[in-house]
């Protein structure tokens, strides 16, 4: 029997297949189903900086903006005596998930700027989260902000969170940094426990009927796999932080490739949204079969075996191969 165990964020996981942040995990019964289907861990859906900031602010605004304006109506709504704003409900979900499952529960915080919201990580820890995944997600539109500044802000956020929690912290990044390896090292120095590569970048659409710019989520395709594969392969052995792959994992082959490149865990969302939570069982069975066929003893044995440092042709990860790849492409027309 192949040993599927892996380590990630201070825990030993029974499987490297991790359910990544998605709306599926807003429901407790889904989390339980993921565990039953073999997930090594679950990363809860993302709690956004804006939710922490804005939701309460909006409520506060609507309760106060028209208050004390008219003699007959000094307020227009009863003041709620208890608030289970999305953040509170999130904490409740962590608590319940911990009560009902055995697998690690990783809380996910999504933000872009330094602020009071980062203190919420502490509440997540208190609620029982085994680790925190920080999804640092900046869409810089201000041309005066340099790349260096953006990197600095990200490191500051990581440091702010690390300073208040004792549980491990992973950082989920976008691929759009000038030098991912350099930046990964910076995060390493900030003692981040894992890098999650990469988040799906928000790219809005235009509605031709209304001419509105509309948010539009497109599920990942297997092609998206290449980007994390590249960087995990390059970073493996070069950073102390553990590596988690996300984006584009749809089959057991995809997962295996990422593990071979050096990922500690492989996170899945689109595949589960498309095929259902129980698809985890299929993936695990297929992965086990491949490992058995190839006579691997364990996942840890094969992990990183085809990373840049271990690959038979390390240059395959570099620019030289780019030219070769282009040259090898034979158009059909």
């Amino acid at each position, binding site marked *: 029997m192949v040993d599927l165990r892996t380590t990630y964020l201070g825990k030993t996981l029974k499987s490297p297949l991790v359910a990544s942040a998605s709306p599926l995990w807003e429901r407790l019964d889904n989390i339980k189903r993921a565990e039953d289907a073999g997930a090594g861990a679950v990363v809860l859906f993302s709690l956004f900086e804006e939710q922490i900031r804005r939701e309460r602010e909006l409520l506060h605004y609507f309760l106060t903006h028209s208050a004390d304006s008219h003699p007959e109506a000094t307020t227009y709504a*009863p003041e709620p005596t208890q608030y289970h704003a999305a953040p509170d409900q999130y904490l409740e979900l962590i608590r319940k998930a911990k009560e009902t499952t055995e697998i690690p529960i990783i809380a996910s915080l999504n933000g872009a700027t330094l602020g009071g919201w980062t203190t919420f990580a502490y509440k997540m820890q208190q609620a029982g989260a085994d680790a925190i995944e920080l999804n640092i997600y900046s869409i810089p539109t201000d041309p005066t902000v340099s790349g260096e500044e953006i990197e600095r802000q990200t490191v500051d956020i990581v440091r702010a969170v690390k300073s208040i929690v004792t549980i491990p912290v992973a950082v989920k990044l976008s691929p759009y940094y000038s030098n991912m390896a350099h930046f990964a090292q910076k995060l390493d120095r900030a003692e981040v426990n894992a890098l999650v590569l990469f988040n799906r970048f928000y790219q809005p659409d235009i509605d031709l009927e209304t001419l509105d710019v509309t948010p539009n989520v497109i599920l990942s395709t297997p092609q998206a796999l290449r980007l994390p594969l590249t960087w995990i392969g390059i970073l493996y052995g070069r950073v102390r932080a553990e590596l988690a792959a996300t984006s584009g994992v749809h089959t057991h082959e995809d997962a295996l490739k990422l593990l071979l490149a050096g990922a500690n865990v492989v996170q899945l969302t689109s595949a589960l949204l498309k095929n259902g939570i129980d698809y985890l069982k299929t993936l695990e069975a297929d992965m086990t079969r491949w490992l058995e066929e190839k006579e691997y003893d364990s996942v840890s044995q094969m992990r990183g075996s085809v990373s840049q440092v271990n690959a038979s042709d390390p240059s395959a990860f570099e620019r030289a191969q780019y030219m070769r790849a282009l040259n090898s492409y034979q158009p059909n027309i």
Partner: protein
Amino acid sequence: MSERVNAMIDGNEATARVAYQLSEVIAIYPITPSSAMGEWADEWASLNQPNLWGTVPQVIEMQSEGGAAGAVHGALQAGALSTTFTASQGLLLMIPNMYKIAGELTPVVIHVAARAIAAQGLSIYGDHADVMATRQTGWAMLSSTSVQEAHDFALIAHSATLRARIPFIHFFDGFRTSHEVNKIELLDNDDLRALIDEALIREHRQRALSPDHPVMRGTAQNPDVYFQARETVNPLYDAVPEIVQGVMDAFAARTGRAYKLYEYHGAPDAERVIVMMGSGCDAAHETVDYLMARGEKIGLLKVRLFRPFAAQLFVDALPSSVKSIAVLDRTKEPGSAGEPLYQDVVTALMEAWNGAAMPRVVGGRYGLSSKEFTPAMVKAVYDNLAAAKPKNHFTVGIIDDLGMTSLDVDNSFSVESDDTVRAIFYGLGSDGTVSANKNSIKIIGDDTPNFAQGYFFYDSKKSGTMTVSYLRFGPRPIRSNYAVNRANFIACHQDIFLEKYDLLNEAVDGAVFLLNTSQPADAAWDFLPRAMQQTMIDRNMSFYVIDADKVAKAAGMGGRINTVMQVCFFAISGVLPRQEAIDAIKHSIEKTFGKKGPEIVQKNLEAIDMTLDNMIHVPLPAAVSSVREFAPPVTSNAPAFVKNVEGAMLARRGDLLPVSALPNDGTYPTGTSQYEKRNLADQIPVWDPEICIQCGKCAMVCPHAVIRIKAYDAEQLNGAPETFKAVDARDTEFAGMKYTIQVAPEDCTGCGICVDVCPAKNKSAVALKAINMRPQPPLRDTERANWDFFTALPETDRTRIKVSSIRQQQMQQPLFEFPGACAGCGETPYLKMISQLFGDRTIIANATGCSSIYGGNLPTTPWAKNKEGRGPAWANSLFEDNAEFGLGIRVAVDKQADYARELLANLSSQIGELATAILEAKQSDEAELHEQRERVAQLKTILEGMDSDEASRLLSLADYLVRKSVWIVGGDGWAYDIGYGGLDHVLASGRNVKILVMDTEVYSNTGGQASKATPLAAVAKFAAGGKRTGKKDLGMMAMLYGHVYVARVALGAKDEQTLRAFLEAEAYDGPALIIAYSHCIAHGINMGTALKNQKAAVDSGQWLLYRYNPTRAEEGENPLSLDSKAPKLPLKEYLRMENRFKMLELSQPDTARRLFELAQDDVGERYAMYEYLANRAFRKAGDDKSGNGSH
């Protein structure tokens, strides 16, 4: 006994705290100014807060105060301890039950925030007209004068009623005691327990109706015994004074606060004594102290127990030295021998005086509708008593140049002591000034040994309202329960006020003036009007400025400048050492906002830290240098009455208007809001004619009718201002004509809903539309000139307008303009539409509520006239009777029209063909109406030349020969709840009345209490835990009559359907009911994009659109047209757009999930039912007896 705890609370809360603890069944209904007591009770019950006996009271909202009284009566008969809270008309509605409850000797207390009764006009403010109207019901009446007394007397009343078996009214002055925040010592449960005798509760339960020991009450009695039975209660009434005094004494033994039924304060050898009750006693009390210290032999007798009136105890309480007495009543009883307290005092003296010479007694009225009652007025009353022939039946506090009843008052007289700090703050409703001051006064009261008092005044408009906060604090208890008129600190939180108001009138020498302005500090002095500069120099004032908006924005608090201004006040006033004050504010912010999250707290804390660096002391120059003068309150073209009377009210000089200036029957001119230029908007819409598709939607949705459209001949453009915009009219009906959309820049409230609805986007930059918001100040002058030019253009010919399409219909002149409604109001566009379509021949009966306030609150009002002088005639009767009131109007109009036709028929031989033409005219469209008006004008000319009784009778009625429209309008509180019985009857009558229900799904005007229109899962006051039952289907109920035209509309979802419904309803010769979705500030939504909420309500199936037209049934068609498509938006998505639903998710997520699912089920079922009804085969009744026609 545990340690005494102090609290800074208002009279409503002080009362409700005790009433809640001592009750098991609490029936509530909102009415200003008592609503807050019910709201507290509902909130505590929703939190499962137990009463004194550890059980949570049942709090039940009723459909009216009459209903509340009935429920209380029932609860009492079934043995529960019960209470209710009310005021004004609400108390009047309880009277029938009050007789019963008293007749059955039932212990209960009604707590009343005493308020004026609607007479020549409605007033929400305080006086004793309501309680005095119940003095004959057999209830004991206990009057408290202050917040502390309201708290204490609530307990004394609950205790005494159990002992006496006589029901009690406990009353205090509305909009003084009810809303004054003062430092009081709280009673604890041990106090309550000590005063409430459990054995008496058991006796009360023992008397209850129970099948286990059955009795009957409510028998019908005959001449043989009724009289005697009525007299059986006398011993119980005789015992009341002693019982109440006994309770007061027991209370004093526990708390140290001693009260007497008739409490004398003053010189033991006083010769002049004032007798009064209510909050005015405190002003009199401090005046007595002041004048006594100066050797005056005067005194004050406070009446606590007004019913039963204990004549001997009253007389005994007077000093024997008294020579003259002034009895002050806070009510007016026209035609009486004197007001009630006066009459009782005279009777008591006649019956019980046994001293030497009987004192002379005079009566006077004061303080009606919260009119100020000050020490200067008290002194005037004592001065009157000192006169050789004191004026009797006088008034004090007004100038009565008609009946010459008023006393002269020397307003320079003041008794305020130097050790009391007195501050006035002028703010806007939306800037948080009042909230901040409530907070400040709590900090001072809670964190310092000072006594403190806060009182807050709001103007009657619902948008851009000015608020005035009056704060006092000092080392001694504060009795000065009148507005601060000697201020040593004045703050202006909005510099726009400086355009119109002199805010320094009340400043004392050496006072501080703090101004929030974006002007740089070196320009701030010259930003002040000349008169204010002069005052500052003359009174040697200090001047501080701050750009609070800048600080608030930098701290991320938007327009809420409250915290910033609060810090300035503490820093300047020195009530606490600076750091201590700042720590206290920070602490209070953490306490108040902590549960709302660290971000909100953090922003406030940042604002605090930034404030002091931004506050600047401006040294006072030696001379006046400003060129600014106050703007006149109304425009120069205003008629004399508007200028002199309404203008004075606008300029905050209404108190100085003499009696003769005012109409004696409550009749006021319409169309006066046009003269008040409020300049509220920072930004106003600007039309881009190149982009515009001339759809008319911007004008249609404008809640304040500031967007107008005209099509006119090109030559009219001669002399147009340079910036006046005009393009070719697009519609073929107006081919060759010019078209303009014009904005009234000074009347706009800046809500932006017009921009949101505009469907035309700029092809090169889609963020730009055909109408865009731009800063008002640089546009004000040019657009004012454009507006003036536009209004002088002839109105678009009504007979050419195709009224069935919004784009043309919106060219009709609105005869409802510039109301005092909220920015973005969802009701007013419907009223405006009525005024455009039918306004020149409409009478409106308006239920009390938001629409009667923004529609009829002085000084200026929005219902307007056209150039011919025609327009809606408007009246508000009551809240509960509006349908009946409107029906009365309809019947009267019909009768007079019938009689006019009879007379015309009789005179037809003399009038000739014209008579026939008039009698046979259809008047079904504008052209025919126009012709009929011309015929009637011709008829009147002929009649004037005739010399007969019939002719002259017909002349006085001839206008009724032009078809009139009667619209009965109001909100859901009226139509679904308090007025439903009447509404139902009016619908059943078959009469030709048109009813518009502006359904905001809550009692909007009183602050968002649930009605039967409130949907499932919505959080509202009185439904703090989310409404657990669905919305009443008023439309379906009306449809069941078969003969009622019913439509459900939502302007923001399908405007053409709305227009069609209004046209069909008016054309239908019978009762018509339109239920109109009206978004509201109480929904917790962005009012600038509220039409999206309307659309979502319809798209989700929450709000169905339909029209049920009995005329179609007559023609054999299915009368029901379902105008909504099958729900396509998950209901949750709509619910989550509105805070009223979201709040439930936040406070009770599990309940929300369940109720949201139920609501989704309801949507499906409701649509299926309506779809079935609209699609079923329909045959006219009688055509086919086997058919399933319903008509």
